[in-house]
């Protein structure tokens, strides 16, 4: 159990600047998710915490100890890899016990811990098997068992669920969270799947190009994205972005004018609105609605109780999520009047991408 502090970490691979001046504080006992597109540096950051890579400059602290120059084995961390990384020639119980055997823990204690971990993960009956006789999900549990058994300060997960099929992935998510609560350990979890990040983390760290874009609780990231990237990355279907200008505190774009009452200089801006915050006028209370906007319905993609409706607003493509009760108001190919939820609008500076409101 320990907190993790990264201080101004820089990492270069040759000439490539993979991690740029990254400072991060991970609370003891939290489940922190590092999320971002491929190549954003999240896996590298995780490996830096593990000690599998060395920093180019900067310091890393686990608990009170500075671990920057320590080998992974001296950092008391455990890691679960994307492809499980099980020892193919050893049976499951030996795989789990490997770390303990390496540290010369005595046999009886090893037995005890292995049994306990296996019980927690429901794999007691697999202890005598070899990895290639197990399914993906079972192998993943063995990998987790191997991590648990060492009672580390920190658990590191490198996209552990990406190799599993969709249904299994969802099941494992819940299991991992339950385990986390039981073990009360600090966990750092890397994924490129924003949905996974949102459902699992107490803290989410969104990264892009080696830089932290935003750090916070899921709610905050979702409802108050700090810049264009975070806004567009989190949430599915993605947030709609409309280019326009801020003049006299109002948002103006072709065919759209939304009085916003904002102060500040006139500039180019981008208005963001999530698909689920676009409604038919009768669905939203007057006070919360923007003036009506006309758009053309392209398709209606029914998903059951709601539908995703791609729209065309002048020359811009957008998507709305409409409850099925209102679908009879919509006809493919025809124009319809819609309103945005005022309290859920996001305004970003066009140049910097930073949030204005």
């Amino acid at each position, binding site marked *: 159990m320990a907190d993790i502090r990264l201080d101004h970490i820089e990492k270069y691979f040759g000439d490539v600047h993979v991690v740029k001046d990254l400072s991060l504080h991970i609370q003891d006992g939290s489940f922190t998710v590092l999320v971002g597109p491929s190549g954003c540096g999240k896996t590298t950051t995780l490996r830096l915490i593990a000690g599998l890579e060395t920093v180019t400059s900067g310091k890393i602290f686990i608990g009170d100890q500075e671990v920057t*120059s*320590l*080998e992974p084995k001296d950092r008391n961390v455990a890691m679960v890899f994307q492809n499980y990384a099980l020892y193919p020639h050893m049976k499951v119980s030996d795989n789990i016990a490997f770390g303990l055997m390496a540290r010369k823990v005595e046999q009886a204690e090893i037995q005890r811990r292995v049994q306990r971990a296996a019980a927690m993960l429901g794999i007691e009956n697999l202890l005598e098997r070899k990895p290639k006789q197990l399914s993906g999900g079972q192998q993943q549990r063995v990998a987790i068992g191997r991590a648990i058994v060492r009672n580390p300060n920190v658990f590191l997960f490198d996209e552990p669920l990406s190799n599993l099929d969709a249904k299994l992935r969802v099941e494992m998510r819940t299991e991992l969270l339950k385990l986390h609560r039981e073990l009360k350990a600090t966990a750092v979890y890397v994924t490129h799947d924003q949905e996974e990040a949102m459902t699992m983390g107490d803290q989410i760290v969104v990264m892009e190009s080696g830089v932290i874009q935003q750090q916070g609780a899921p709610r905050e990231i979702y409802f108050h994205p700090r810049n264009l990237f975070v806004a567009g990355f989190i949430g599915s279907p993605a947030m709609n972005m409309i280019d326009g200008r801020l003049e006299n505190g109002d948002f103006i774009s072709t065919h759209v004018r939304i009085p916003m009452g904002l102060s500040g200089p006139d500039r180019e801006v981008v208005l963001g609105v999530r698909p689920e915050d676009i409604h038919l006028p009768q669905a939203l209370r007057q006070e919360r609605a923007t003036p009506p906007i006309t758009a053309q319905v392209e398709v209606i993609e029914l998903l059951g109780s709601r539908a995703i409706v791609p729209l065309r607003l002048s020359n811009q493509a957008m998507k709305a999520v409409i409850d099925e009760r209102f679908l009879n108001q919509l006809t493919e190919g025809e124009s319809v009047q819609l309103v945005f939820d005022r309290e859920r609008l996001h305004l970003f500076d066009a140049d910097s991408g930073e949030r204005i409101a």
Partner: protein
Amino acid sequence: MNGTRYWRRALGDWGGTLILVIALIVVLFPYTWIFLTSLKPTALVAKPDVWLFSPTWENWREVLLESDVPRYLLNSVIVGLSTVLIALTVAAPASYSFSRFKTGGGPVRFSILAAEMLPPAVLIVPLFLLMFNLELLDTHLALIAAHLTFVTPVITWFLIGFFDEVPKELEEQAMVDGYTQFQAFYKVVLPTVRPGLAAAAIFGFVLSWNDMFYALILSGGNNKTLPVAIAGFWTFRGIEMGKMAVAILIAIVPVLIVSFFIQKYLVKGLGGGAVKY
């Protein structure tokens, strides 16, 4: 800063590098020595403690221009090329058959490899007697026949890996386009494995080039090959050692140069075949 851990790791790295450097010296030392010996004037050859001398090309001149060594060199080349040519012609279709159709399965494929592992002692007596009776001793033909016994299996084995990598669709496309099976093999598949054929040819040539055992017994006189000629320098008088060094260098330098180019194919052919049957 936890410095001690760093030191231990750095020491390990340096230790490893040191061992590698020692190995490098061990390997390079004989080459250097033999090269220097070839440049030593004959009077100094018998003195191991003299290493500062003015080099002379006398040995090289004598061997290259005044001795029979160039003829033996030529013999080695002729035997090598002929062996490889015949071996390739015979082995390529067979390799293809083993790769594509798994002809004969494991046992047949493996007995081909086993043929290469036979000790030459086994064949030398019958081959010698046969050549003796056919009055073919001391001809190139005798030696080529002997070399075929181990070059052909090796080349066959070597090529299978390369044929394995040609996608089946290539020949199927050719046959759909109107070629017969053999034409598809000859005009489409073979050109695709050309690098493999080249590597196999070089490898086979080196094997033939290096053989001394068969050459010693089956060739002699004018048809001696280079290794036999080198062995002929056996009685060491000071005079011969410098020239022997030259002969050795002639024999090994081309092979060494070639080995640099062929290494990556070797890992595929040898290492891949032995490691992942």
